[in-house]
């Protein structure tokens, strides 16, 4: 490494080791902050969940899970709310899932990547950030008053479908874009049409990611309160038709706590809610790992 006889190697062992001490100290400090930050995040989560569970498990009995509401929720159980929650999840996804998948296909494959797509993408991004109560107000006025759906399962499901639509479109879009282009070329190269390629090759390959989005949407439906307050109402019985007013677990929890009806039963309801959400998130995480197997293939 000699240049004109004047070049001296800079990397003496002493120089390197001397500087290493400083670098190690900086690393220790950085790691210490990371541990503290991570600790706070985990502690807060465990504190909340632990607190709810500690208070809530006492309330959970077979009767609590299987009986209807008595005395506005002071007595009895939450069975109708569990069923109503399932109804709303089912109906909301029935509206949102097909629309979101078709929209995602359109946005990724059929339309030209132009201004229109940028506008749609802008709205799907920003719609996701609008407070849900705004959607609730819209559902109340448009579906409830103008279309005359009043407070009903139908109104609640339509409103919640609009709320989860942006998230569903984006996850479906990302899942479709993750499928290797070579799959598509292989199919088109055999003479398959675009739609056959989508339906038989691309969508099946993207399905774990699409389901992941749907499960995140389910979590959102289960957890939503404000928008449903305006649109679903507060019927405390199992909904008899899609025009019945109903009450999900979240709405019931809100009622119990806000009206001071039964703190004990509010904790019990909260515990059931948390368990449902945790289960959904575990499934979503598993599906996410399944779709990410493509990432190295691209």
């Amino acid at each position, binding site marked *: 490494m000699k240049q004109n006889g004047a070049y001296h190697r800079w990397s003496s062992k002493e120089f390197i080791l001397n500087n290493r001490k400083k670098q190690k100290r900086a690393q220790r400090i950085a790691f210490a902050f990371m541990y503290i930050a991570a600790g706070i995040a985990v502690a807060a989560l465990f504190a909340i969940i632990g607190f709810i569970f500690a208070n809530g498990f006492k309330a959970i009995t077979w009767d609590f899970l299987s009986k209807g509401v008595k005395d506005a929720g002071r007595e009895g159980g939450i069975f109708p709310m569990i069923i109503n929650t399932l109804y709303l999840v089912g109906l909301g996804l029935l509206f949102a899932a097909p629309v979101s998948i078709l929209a995602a296909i359109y946005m990724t494959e059929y339309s*030209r*990547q132009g201004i229109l797509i940028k506008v749609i993408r802008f709205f799907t991004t920003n719609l996701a950030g609008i407070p849900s109560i705004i959607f609730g107000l819209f559902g109340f006025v448009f579906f409830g008053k103008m279309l005359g759906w009043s407070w009903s399962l139908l109104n609640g499901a339509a409103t919640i479908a609009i709320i989860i639509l942006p998230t569903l479109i984006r996850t479906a879009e990302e899942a479709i874009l993750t499928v*290797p282009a*070579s*799959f598509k*070329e*292989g*199919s*088109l*190269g*055999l*003479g*398959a*049409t675009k739609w*056959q390629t989508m339906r*038989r*090759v691309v969508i*099946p*390959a993207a399905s774990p990611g699409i389901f992941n989005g749907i499960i995140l949407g389910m979590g959102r439906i289960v957890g939503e309160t404000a928008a449903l307050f305006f649109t679903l109402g507060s019927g405390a019985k199992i909904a008899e038709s899609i025009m019945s007013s109903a009450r999900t677990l979240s709405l019931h929890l809100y009622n119990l706590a806000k009206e001071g009806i039964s703190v004990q039963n509010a904790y019990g309801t909260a515990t059931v809610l948390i368990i449902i959400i945790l289960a959904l998130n575990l499934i979503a995480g598993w599906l996410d790992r399944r779709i990410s197997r493509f990432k190295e293939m691209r």
Partner: protein
Amino acid sequence: MSYLTARKEAPEASNVMVKISGLSLYYGNCRALNNINMDIMEKKVTALIGPSGCGKSTFIKCINRMNDLIPGCRIEGDVIVNGTNIYKDGIDVSYLRKEAGMVFQKPNPFEMSVFDNVAYGPRVHGLRDRHKLAAIVEHSLKAAALWDEVKDRLHQSAMGLSGGQQQRLCIARVLAVEPSILLMDEPTSALDPISTQKIEDLIAELKEEYTIIIVTHNMQQAARISDMTAFFLLGELVEFDRTAQVFRNPSDKRTEDYITGRFG
């Protein structure tokens, strides 16, 4: 072994399968192919060689219109496949792609069973008869020299096959739609030497029945397997002749420089 001792037989007066005249291709304002004229003979192996970026992959994708998928791609001139001008309005692109089947650089089996991969083409073209499909799958896998290796695992995922097996599966998948032309875009570049050998042997067999156009980076491969060789450089067709002629006695200085390894 020298590639100068290439096969002897000249392409006899056989039919022209693909006739290319005045073909230019643009990506936006950038010209990727410049006025290509070429007659590709039926049931011969035509190799396309040239350095990276010379347009040979772009060229092969003109023959089954896979370039349609690329936004901003524009084509001038005529490509006549088996008597049909494929860039005229009103031609059926699906039928063209069935007739001119493509094998890609990286094996790209679908996430389905071996059987469903091969049956995919016939199915998308509307064949439903299960007995016929089973016969097609067996026939195609045998023709692709893969049957013995997969006959006991037809209903397992194709993703579990080795790279070489996957590529032969992709060939079987193309054969199942009964093409006249096989377009192969560097089909062995992702494979080990033994798998490459198997594919080359397969090409030698398949040319009895199919017109084969193969893009390759590997000049020895071109010399070993092809009857005709086309040398591309910077989007131009520099030389197109019998393989023996191109490798033994090239008429253009640039071809000579390339095949003797002076660049590329």
